[in-house]
């Protein structure tokens, strides 16, 4: 929902970043206000995942220039865990498997860490169990996933649900969802999209990073940005996604080059 008077959550100015010495982001600017849903689309290798990862503090990405503030705080002065505690979240494209650590144990630890950072009450294992089961029900997740090791042996769809479960638990102010739709069949996509829709409030915001327009039939974006060659080359409303679906990405790149 676009409201001109809404608070600015994220302000990125001319961000450039490289990984392993190669410049991937070449001056990206983006403003996200509370209540908004943004979609960043673009061909593979355009830099859209890098953008999300660099903002949440992935150590492999080196910021070479530009600025990013989150609720007025300089993001690049914060460690990854501090950004999470401040309210940033990344739903991973490829969630990491952690054998030996029970999902329930991990989820509670993450939840309590974020709660403590917000000065809110932590939950003991029994209280947390009730709380997390409720959230899992909304996502159509089998409670058996609590006892299994984090993401280990989960199918692609189960891993993505586990990411959204974490989002539901941690209640971030700004969530990047990186290719959350890839690998999901249509039923799983609907469940995940409905859950995300339920989490949207006037006070938080979501940035969907996706290659496919399909997700945007289920989560309606206020803004669609097209990334190419490490820059945002076009920004429009939700209709832009449909146009991209019909015409591909090349015309945008061509238009940008001509401009």
């Amino acid at each position, binding site marked *: 929902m676009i409201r001109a008077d809404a608070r600015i959550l994220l302000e990125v100015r001319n961000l450039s970043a490289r990984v392993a010495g190669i410049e991937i982001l070449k001056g990206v600017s983006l403003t996200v206000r509370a209540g908004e849903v943004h979609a960043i689309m673009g061909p593979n290798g355009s830099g859209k995942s890098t953008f999300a990862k660099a903002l949440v503090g992935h150590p492999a990405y080196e910021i070479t220039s530009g600025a990013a503030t989150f609720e007025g705080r300089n993001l690049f002065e914060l460690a*990854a865990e501090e950004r999470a505690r401040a309210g940033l979240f990344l739903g991973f494209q490829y969630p*990491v498997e*952690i*054998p*030996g650590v029970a999902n329930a144990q991990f989820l509670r*630890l993450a939840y309590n*860490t974020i709660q403590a*950072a917000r000065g809110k009450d932590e939950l003991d294992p029994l209280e947390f169990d009730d709380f997390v089961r409720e959230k899992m029900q909304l996502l159509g997740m089998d409670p058996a996933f609590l006892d299994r*090791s984090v993401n280990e042996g989960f199918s692609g769809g189960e891993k993505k649900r586990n990411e959204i479960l974490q989002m539901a638990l941690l209640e971030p102010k700004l969530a990047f969802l990186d290719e959350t739709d890839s690998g999901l069949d249509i039923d799983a996509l609907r469940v995940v999209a409905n859950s995300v829709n339920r989490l949207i409030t006037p006070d938080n915001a979501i940035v969907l990073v996706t290659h496919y327009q399909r997700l945007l039939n289920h989560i309606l974006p206020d803004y669609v940005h097209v990334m190419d060659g490490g820059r945002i080359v076009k920004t429009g409303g939700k209709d832009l996604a449909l146009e991209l679906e019909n015409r591909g990405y090349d015309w945008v790149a061509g238009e940008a080059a001509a401009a």
Partner: protein
Amino acid sequence: MTTATVHPWLASLLAGHASVPARPHDWVNRLRSDALERAHALTLPTIRQEDWRFTDLSPLYQLAFRAAAPAAAPAGLGLEPVIAPEAGARLVFIDGQFVPALSILASDGVVATTLGAAFDAHGDLVRSQLAQLAPFADDAFRAINTAYLADGALVFVARDAVARSPVQLIFATTQADVATHPRCLVVAEQGSEVTVVEDYVGLQDGASCVNAVTEIAVGPNAHVRHVRRQRESSASFHIATCAVRLERDASYRAVAVAVGARISRYNLNVVQAGEGTSCQLDGLALIRDRQLADTHSFIDHAHPHGTSRQLHKCVVGGHAHAVFNGRIMVRPGAQRTDSAQASRNLLLSRRAHVDTKPQLEIFADDVKCAHGATVGQLEAEELFYLQSRGLGERVARGLLTYGFAAEIVDRIPVPSIVESLRRTVLHETQGEALA
């Protein structure tokens, strides 16, 4: 052979032999004297031998050990945390002495009793099996163990019997400067099933020497699960052999965890002596300071259609040193053997050290054998994942280290032992945030 060449340490260790009372059974006495003679003739391992290249026992040879005084009063020993409540039968040995008051014998379908009693009650069985799987002809420590043979544990599962609850064997050391020689024999007859938990625990802080031998004979289509915990005191020495023989279609699944001892060495030998056998050998060494933990395993595929799986992990902190030598033999004719072995090692400090050596010897042509070894630090992607959920770096590292070790612990089929070892791992990996 002359006694003049006997290593003084060995001579002193064997001097206590005279105090072992003779048994009324000639064959036992003969076995012991044969072993004693052999022990005098054998040389003690040194780092000049390939098998002991990384494990220097010279600190052991500098210490004098005595025979244990009679076991202290059972009360107040601190044995409670060791006890697995699930166990239906339990034999407790304290400083080498069987303690009936702490033990639960079993005799119905599943026999759990002392070797001392079994020499009478199951004489033929014990005689036909003892020292067969773990011969002492060329191993000084086994010879010493056998020379001291007086008592020990027998677990016998009769044909088609299924042990509904685990059998726990506890060997606790409560006195410093003593040497003990625990001995276990497990015989699972055709079609039977049993879970055996073997526990070695130090309840004192001084140096002690535990020299253990376990033999496990698994009959046709029988299934044995084996849990082994070694938590000796940090000044102690622990040398052990476990020899397993699998008859046709038998299976053996083992998890061995080493946390204690200054120097520990575990030799695990599994012979697949019939077609279609399977074994899974998982191991975890969790050590720090100046500890050394050495596992040498040998899986001998001698018949077709055998499978083996092995995952050995070491978590090494401080100046500690872990050793893993995983030898796998596939003999001619052991066609369609399917074997996979992995050695995974996590170094927690710059001074920590691992020597890992897979050793495949394949003499059959239609086989599947995979092996791999990794030594390293925590994965950056895993750390980032946890940090992106708000966890501080120290907590994240602790959690990942914990998970690395817990993956092995979770394979133990006894819940209370999983719980207790998870707590141990938690403590060792400083993952207090999870408590």
